[in-house]
């Protein structure tokens, strides 16, 4: 009988954490983690260096079962792994192939698809993009309009996808397309794999409010896609899409990101002066930091409760939505307080400082440069991946019986 809850990691878990940390210390190039720390623009190669290292170690497919070349880790191990790579300021693992498409193929793909695509994902040979959102289908994803018409041996695809993250680096894109035009939303959707170099595919950059290029529009004009590129059954793509969207994501709350931002905030608040004294000594500002820290403390336990339940095989339900909402709000709050802590030092914006090798004197302290930009950039996290409004709809619908 359990008489007392245990909030500690087991010795096995702690050993695992050390193994991950040591490996990162040894293999992650300093120059790369410095770039991540300075919020400098990462090249395709920067992402690939880290992902190739993971491949060599056998850790890239950290969500896959062992028989497909994955790690077979449980939820706690995944959580530790993710925490350590964020703490080490590694580039993020580009999730579209390995974390999103991989599990869908493993569950629903044909043997041929698994044999062809999975090894290419594992070796980083293919860079995948996600083709879900459309200009007219955001929160209401099921109302998508991109069509794939059956032409015997191939589908003819026409339409437009948007917000395609890092799509300008991608070789391939998995898309939700309408194969039955007369079906109601959510029906008549198929899950299609498309080569980016097929004639008729065009990628156009979207410049975001911070002046950066990370997302794209992808246009399809009479694009011929072989029929064997459909995943699962025709018109049942929504099921796979939902599987992908609800696929266990231990990191949804972004706790390690908020933790490192909180440390950064404390450091900056010690150095920023208000009336000649460190800002951290200002009772109101330090209270704001304290309340943020309390929110984060509670959220970390909330997250661990969910992770621990998942490790025991319980699929998280509405907890994912709740953690997504709270996680994004906490993370946005850290960027807000960082911005406030700087005062007028948040104003200067030198876009060239985010280029590799920039070594001029910054305007003001070196930590100030990326702060306002990050604040604006982070507005996206409560919009993408199912906006916080949509998450609330999901929770209300699933759990209140109203």
């Amino acid at each position: 009988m359990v008489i007392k809850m245990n909030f500690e990691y087991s010795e096995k878990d702690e050993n695992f954490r050390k193994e991950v940390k040591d490996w990162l210390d040894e293999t992650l190039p300093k120059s790369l983690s410095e770039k991540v720390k300075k919020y400098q623009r990462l090249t395709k190669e920067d992402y690939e260096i880290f992902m190739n290292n993971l491949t060599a170690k056998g850790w890239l497919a950290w969500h896959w079962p062992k028989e497909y070349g994955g790690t077979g880790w449980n939820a706690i191990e995944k959580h530790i792994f993710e925490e350590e790579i964020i703490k080490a300021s590694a580039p993020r693992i580009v999730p579209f192939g390995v974390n999103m498409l991989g599990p869908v193929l493993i569950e629903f793909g044909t043997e041929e698809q698994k044999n062809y695509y999975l090894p290419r994902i594992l070796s980083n040979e293919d860079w995948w993009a996600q083709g879900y959102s459309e200009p007219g289908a955001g929160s209401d994803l099921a109302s998508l309009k991109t069509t794939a018409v059956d032409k015997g041996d191939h589908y003819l695809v026409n339409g437009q996808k948007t917000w395609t993250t890092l799509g300008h680096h991608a070789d391939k894109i998995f898309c939700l397309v309408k194969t039955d035009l007369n079906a109601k939303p959510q029906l008549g959707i198929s899950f299609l794999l498309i080569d980016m170099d097929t004639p008729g595919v065009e990628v156009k950059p979207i410049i975001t409010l911070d002046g950066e290029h990370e997302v794209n529009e992808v246009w399809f004009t009479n694009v011929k896609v072989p029929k064997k590129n459909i995943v699962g059954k025709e018109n049942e793509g929504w099921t796979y899409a939902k599987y992908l969207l609800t696929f266990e994501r231990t990191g949804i709350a972004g706790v390690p990101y908020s933790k490192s931002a909180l440390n950064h905030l404390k450091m900056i608040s010690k150095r920023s002066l208000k009336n000649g004294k460190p800002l951290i000594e200002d009772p109101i500002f330090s209270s704001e930091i304290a309340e943020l820290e309390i929110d984060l403390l509670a959220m970390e336990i909330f997250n661990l409760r969910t992770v621990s339940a998942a490790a025991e095989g319980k699929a998280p339900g509405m907890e994912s939505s709740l953690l997504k909402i709270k996680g994004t709000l906490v993370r946005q709050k850290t960027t807000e307080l960082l911005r406030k802590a700087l005062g007028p030092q948040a104003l200067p914006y030198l876009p060239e400082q985010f280029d590799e090798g920039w070594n001029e004197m910054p305007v003001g302290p070196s930590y100030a440069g990326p702060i306002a930009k990050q604040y604006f950039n982070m507005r996206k996290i409560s919009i993408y991946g199912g906006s916080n409004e949509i998450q609330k709809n999901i929770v209300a619908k699933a759990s209140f019986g109203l």
Partner: protein
Amino acid sequence: MDFTLSEERKMLQETVGKFFNSNYKNIDKRSENVNLPEGYSKEFWKESSDLGVISALVSPKFGGLGGSGEDISIIFELVGKSLCVEPFLSSAVLSSTVLSSISNPRNDLITDIIEGNLLISFAHCEMNNRYEDHYIETNAYLKNDEWNINGTKSFVMNGDDASKIIVSARINGDVNDRHGIGLFLVDNDQTLKRPYNTIDGYRSTELTFEDLKGELLAKDENALKCIIKANSAGALALSAEALGIMQICFDLTLDYLKTRKQFGKSIGAFQSIQHRMVDMMLEIEQVKSAVMLASSTFETDDLTRDKNISAAKNLVGRVGKLIAEETIQLHGGIAMTWEYSAAHYAKRLIMIDHLMGDSDYHRDRFKLLSNS
């Protein structure tokens, strides 16, 4: 009581509004002005002068045709609606306020500013003085009857293009003393400049002085009084600017909620969204009211003036965050793009809280003034 604008001011509002709109047609046109060498359009600045927009910011006592709190608010609400990047704040409000508040007002310089022939920037902020009126590291010393200024001023709006600079510097005492401050007029051709754009598209500069000769404009109590008045006038102008931006943000968002369809209806049909729009609407009414109050007491005693301006600027900081964040969130991804104007309005609205005192600074100042 009468909360309506006089006929003259309504006309001013209409004329200037039309003029701003005809130049700042869209966000691309604004980006053009931002990307000009000086960070703003000299042509538009000159036209503004010809039309009397700069004059409307200065009292008749000093050669202008306006200069009341209401005048400043009317013009800056329109500056906000168009996101104008011209030196209305730096030269026409901050510098002309100092030049008109010193013991021997400098009508000659003010006239040049009004006529669009002279740009003067006010260099008070420093890297470490946050929003304080009196925390000054830059120093000035007298040698052979000449004032020499040493130090670095930060966040000097339009400090690269201005011909002259008004500099606050410490004559004696400790960095944090309220006495021992001087205000100096210097030529800008001998300064070391590091110009840059701010994240919301405005030109700012780091200015470094090495034994730079300056003309003393004011010192001690009078100097501090001038700095406080200039910063208060700036905070009032920025509050009105923010109000103009908030109204545009609200209109853009409402318009989008009506046209954007998801789940078979306009997203504005969802009650949860409507309630958030109502929250925005009522907070904007609050800001409007606070700005009106601050405008109407701008020419009264210093304490009432500063207390009401702090109330407005504090509210602007808090409500500005709400409006900027909700504008982006309720639009969704589209408001995260450079191409769409809402993002630029949101950025300016947020960064206004980093100029002339943020919501915390003005809450503290309000507390102090309200209890004195």
